[in-house]
């Protein structure tokens, strides 16, 4: 895609602003926009008021398998695939729309922290394209959940229908419960 036109560049800046506001990392911005590294850095500092964090990106498919991350990841991926299939959006626009809807679902209703960051969401889409992850239907509720492609999932049951015994009983959850009682 050429950004030599003024309109094209303005669109790229708009995409970069959306992504930075959602918390995207530099590597992702460089991949998804055609802007130069210097311009992205300046944009980042203008919007966030700090330099982008350095270091490796969270690169692991196993993260998506534990209980809470799996539900959040499945929620995002279901929204993403719904949009690609029904709303005719694609690429980075689908990512931005789906992530917005995911944030609304999580913050508006659950009063929960968004567990899935935009960078992980972006990675997950790439994992799906590479065939490392796929969506598996739960035999009890029929919802689709993120699972490893190589696993044998013939009678897959999702983490909501059969939560592991200690699911959701984290230190943070206990603290907020006692805070409510007090």
């Amino acid at each position, binding site marked *: 895609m050429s950004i030599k036109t003024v309109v094209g560049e303005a669109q790229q800046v708009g995409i970069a602003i959306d992504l930075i506001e959602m918390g995207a990392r530099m590597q992702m911005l460089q991949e998804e926009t055609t802007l130069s590294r210097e311009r992205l850095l300046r944009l980042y500092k203008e919007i966030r008021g700090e330099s982008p964090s350095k270091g490796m990106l969270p690169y692991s498919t196993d993260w998506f398998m534990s209980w809470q991350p799996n*539900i*959040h990841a*499945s*929620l995002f991926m*279901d*929204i993403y*695939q*719904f*949009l690609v299939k*029904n*709303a*005719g*959006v694609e690429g980075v*626009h*689908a990512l931005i*729309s789906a992530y*917005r*809807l995911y944030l609304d*679902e*999580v913050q508006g*209703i*659950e009063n*929960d922290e968004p567990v899935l960051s935009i960078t992980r969401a972006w990675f997950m889409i790439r994992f799906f394209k590479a065939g490392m992850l796929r969506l598996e239907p739960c035999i009890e*509720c*029929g*919802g*689709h*959940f993120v699972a490893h492609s190589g696993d044998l999932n013939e009678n897959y049951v999702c983490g*909501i229908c059969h*939560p592991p015994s200690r699911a*959701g009983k984290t230190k943070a959850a206990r603290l907020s419960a006692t805070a409510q009682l007090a």
Partner: protein
Amino acid sequence: MNTMQLQEGIRDINLTYLMLAQQMIKNDRPAAIFRLGISGDLVDVIDNLTPSQIIKMAASNMLLCRFRFDENLLLNLVDDFSRNRKMSQAHAAILMSAHPVEELA
């Protein structure tokens, strides 16, 4: 509730639904398709309705919007809420996104 009140209520909901839907579509089309659960063609039709067309459409004695929760989904939600479990809303959203959208016939 007599018939007059009933019809008035239905017309109210129709009008509110159409106006809300149009607003949602104008704000963010992909998000509106997800939230309303209707196809892109149908979204375009609603988007292009003029105010007078909306009022005419709303003045029907039948509800324009359909119940989206089918039996399974509804049972799941009731079950989850009675057990007061977290994630039931996320679960509903996951199940809902697997549903096909309402298409134009």
